[in-house]
Structures are given as structure tokens and as C-alpha cells.
């Protein structure tokens, strides 16, 4: 066990992939939770259970990469609109960049525990989002009336997150997170051309921004034509997300009713848009995982690129894997606590990824 004082090296691609998978999974699961009346924009922020210790151990750069990749995935798989994504990304990036070194230094010197670090980070992140909404949407200050409940909530949710994050960090927990992502796919990746990799990435990102149904349809066709069977299989595997998206978009979207008393045309349009977006994103993600020119990437450390590409084919298995793990964990009498559950989750994920 290395001593807590010596700095950790940059995370390897597997560790990054494992952390990203768990963080994204927590983010998506959180979207299923019901909202608090009167303050429906507040969320527990469970993915920080992974991101906070990641920041404390590996530093600002890796944490930024993890956070932004998580946002990208929740935009594609969780159906988040682009504006929410932008505001959250900028706020999180600022909070991590500004507080990162401060929190790491304070922790190294034993001044700060996990609770304080979590509260400060959550407070900064939420205040940033509030400021951005005020500046971008309203165009003037004086929006900070909401800051009261926001701060109180930040403290409460941050404390919960801090407690749940204790098994991670200080050098612990990352190995078995990396073990969740089996080595099989990463070792034998062929070398693609940089040009194709860039095109695939651009098209994958474009699928997140285009909202025109025809445009998304075209992207899907291009993706399937390029990726052929592999792309089709990847799309088929994302079926668990369909009921999730349907639940998200069909219920109470206002508009003209087309079926019964709750499904509207606008709701169906939104669902179609999100389903097509997900299909295009998944298919291009699969292509990217195969075509990404690992040895040619000259962007400093490519651990985040490889890690991200490793996560893409595993994202469709998130829901089934977690459900399977929860079932077997419950049946085993919750053996091993949280770590026990996460271990089962990792095994389910590896089994399905083959």
C-alpha cells in the first residue's frame, strides 16, 4: 500500500473507465428519483461519490476529464438538454479547477476531512450554476434569492456524498474499480486512421446537438452503414434505456393528445428525437471504440480517451448489470455492504461486455 503522502500517478485507462461507469450510472439512477416539491431543481449529486475522491487522489486534470465525460454520457443516455449540459459542465469545471488544488493541499496537510471538502465543492458547484443561470438567462445579478435553500441543500447532500465516498480515495478503491472493466477489449484494439477517428468523434458529438429528427435519422443511417453489424448490435443492446427515456419524455409533455389522456404528439416527438440520438451516439461510440488511433493520439495522456472508449460499449449494460447485481446482493443478505454490491456490479458488467 503506498503511503498517502506520495502523489498518485495519473490513472490508467481502466481505472478511468471504471470510475466513469460508476459515476455515470449513479447520475442516471439519480434522474429516476422523484423531485422535491418547491425545490425541484435540487438533486443529490451522487456521482460526486466517485468524482470527489478521484479529484483528491489524481488532481484537477483527471477529475475534469472524468466530470466532462460523465456529462457527455448523461446527455446522450439520460436525455438531458444541451443547455443544462453546458451550464453544469462550465460550473463543475470552474469549481474543480478553482478548488481542486486547495482541497488536495488541505487534505494532504490533514486540515480538511472528506465532509468539509465535499461541502465546499458542492457549494461552489451549485453557486456557479446559479450564477450562470442568472447571468445567461436573466442577464443581471440579483438572482441570488435562491441561494438560501441551495446552500442548505448543498450541505446536506454533500455530507451524504462524503460519507458514501469514504471507501474510495487515499489510494484505495481504484484497483477494483479498474478491475470492473475487463482487459479484453483494450488489449487488442486495431489501429485506425486519425482522420476516421476524428470524423467518428465529430459525428458522435454532433448527435448530441442536432435536434432535427431528419438530421438524426441521417446520422443513424450513416452510423449503421459504417459500423454494420457491430453498430446494430450495440444499438440493440441499449434497449433498456428505451423505457427509461419513454418514462422521462412521454409523461406530462404538453401538447396535442394522440393516445389516451397522457401521450401527446410533442412527447412522442421528443422521445423519437432522444431515441434516435441515443442510437446514433451508441453506434458512433462503438465505431470510435474500434477505430480510435490509440498510438497516434498526442494529447498528453490518452488515459481519458481510452477510458472513455472503453465505457462506450458498456453503457448499455448499466441498467441490466445494476439490476442483476442488486438482486444477487439482496439475496446474499447484503453481504459486503456497498463494496459487496459494487463488486457484484463489476462482475455483471464484465460478463455482459463479452
Amino acid at each position, binding site marked *: 500500500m503506498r503511503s498517502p503522502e506520495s502523489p498518485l500517478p495519473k490513472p490508467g485507462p481502466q481505472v478511468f473507465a471504471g470510475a466513469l461507469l460508476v459515476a455515470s450510472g449513479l447520475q442516471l439512477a439519480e434522474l429516476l428519483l422523484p423531485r422535491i416539491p418547491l425545490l*425541484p431543481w435540487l438533486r443529490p449529486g451522487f456521482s460526486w461519490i466517485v468524482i470527489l475522491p478521484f479529484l483528491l487522489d489524481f488532481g484537477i486534470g483527471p477529475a475534469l476529464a472524468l466530470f466532462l465525460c460523465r456529462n457527455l454520457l448523461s446527455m446522450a443516455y439520460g436525455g438531458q438538454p444541451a443547455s443544462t449540459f453546458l451550464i453544469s459542465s462550465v460550473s463543475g469545471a470552474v469549481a474543480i479547477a478553482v478548488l481542486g488544488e486547495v482541497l488536495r493541499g488541505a487534505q494532504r496537510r490533514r486540515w480538511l476531512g472528506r465532509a468539509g471538502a465535499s461541502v465546499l465543492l458542492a457549494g461552489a458547484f451549485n453557486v456557479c450554476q446559479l450564477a450562470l443561470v442568472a447571468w445567461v438567462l436573466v442577464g443581471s445579478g440579483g438572482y441570488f434569492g435562491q441561494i438560501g435553500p441551495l446552500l442548505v441543500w448543498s450541505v446536506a447532500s454533500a455530507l451524504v456524498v462524503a460519507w458514501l465516498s469514504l471507501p474510495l480515495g487515499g489510494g484505495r478503491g481504484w484497483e477494483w474499480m479498474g478491475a470492473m472493466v475487463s482487459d479484453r477489449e483494450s488489449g487488442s484494439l486495431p489501429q485506425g486512421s486519425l482522420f476516421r477517428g476524428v470524423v467518428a468523434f465529430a459525428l458522435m458529438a454532433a448527435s448530441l446537438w442536432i435536434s432535427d429528427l431528419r438530421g438524426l435519422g441521417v446520422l443513424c443511417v450513416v452510423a449503421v452503414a459504417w459500423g454494420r453489424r457491430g453498430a446494430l448490435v450495440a444499438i440493440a443492446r441499449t434497449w433498456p434505456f428505451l423505457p427509461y427515456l419513454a418514462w422521462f419524455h412521454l409523461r406530462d409533455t*404538453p401538447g396535442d393528445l394522440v393516445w389516451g389522456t397522457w401521450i401527446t404528439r410533442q412527447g412522442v416527438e421528443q422521445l423519437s428525437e432522444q431515441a434516435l440520438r441515443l442510437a446514433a451516439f451508441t453506434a458512433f461510440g462503438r465505431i470510435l471504440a474500434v477505430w480510435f488511433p490509440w498510438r497516434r493520439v498526442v494529447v498528453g495522456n490518452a488515459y481519458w480517451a481510452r477510458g472513455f472508449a472503453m465505457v462506450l460499449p458498456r453503457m448499455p449494460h448499466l441498467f441490466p448489470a445494476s439490476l442483476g447485481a442488486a438482486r444477487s446482493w439482496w439475496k446474499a443478505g447484503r453481504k459486503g455492504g456497498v463494496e459487496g454490491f459494487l463488486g457484484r456490479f463489476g462482475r455483471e458488467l464484465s460478463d455482459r461486455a463479452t
Partner: protein
Amino acid sequence: MGPDGSDRSPNRFLRPLDVVIVVVVTALGIWSTARLFGAPSGTRAVIWVDGRRAAWVPLGGETSVDSVRGTLGAFVVEHGHGRIRVLRSPCPGKICQKQGGVHRVGDKLVCVPSHVVVVVESESGTEGDLDAVP
């Protein structure tokens, strides 16, 4: 709760400074919330779309419905009897709809995907000097 069980574990949950931080931030939050409740009730609400004023609606009188065009489509508010709430919003999360009615000066209903913000104001606000009178 570190591997060696000692106090020097980096994964310590609470240290003295943490308690200070938690207390200070919570106090700040409670104080701001109290100020929020101290604000008077507003008489009208201004609807901003994309950073520009799109309309304003009175809060008093009988309940009536108005709609503005946000970036995702029609955004409908219901106002009257001193309150205003979002009746229908075209965004996927419907966060603004779930917020319910607001009535205090400074209260806001925000729909980020639609770029719409509804702000409650009062008639008697000190908004500074006029630049000119035509």
C-alpha cells in the same frame, strides 16, 4: 477508517475545520432563506426569454393564462390571486412546472432548456433615475 485504523488516515470523515465549514455554510443558507421569506409579495411578474423581456403579467385579479414562446415552444403560465406558476412547459425535465406557485418579490421560475425565466417584481421598486422623458 483507513487500512491502518489510525488517525492519520486521509479518509477521515470529519475534522475540526469541517465542522466550521458545515456550520458556516448552513448558517449562510438559513440566513438567506429567511431573507427570502421576508420579501414582500409582488404585484406582477416579468417573463424573460433568451435574456430579453418578453412580456409581463399582473399577479392580481382573477386567474388567467398567458403563454410566451420559449426556444422549445409555447411556455404557459397561470397567474392570479397574487401568485404565478408554470402551467405547461415544453422541456423534458418539467422542473419549473414542479416548482408550483411563487408570489414573493424576487421569486423566480426558471426553465433552463427553454431559456425562460419568470421573475416576480413589485410596483414600488427603486429602479433608479430615468434617463429621459420624451
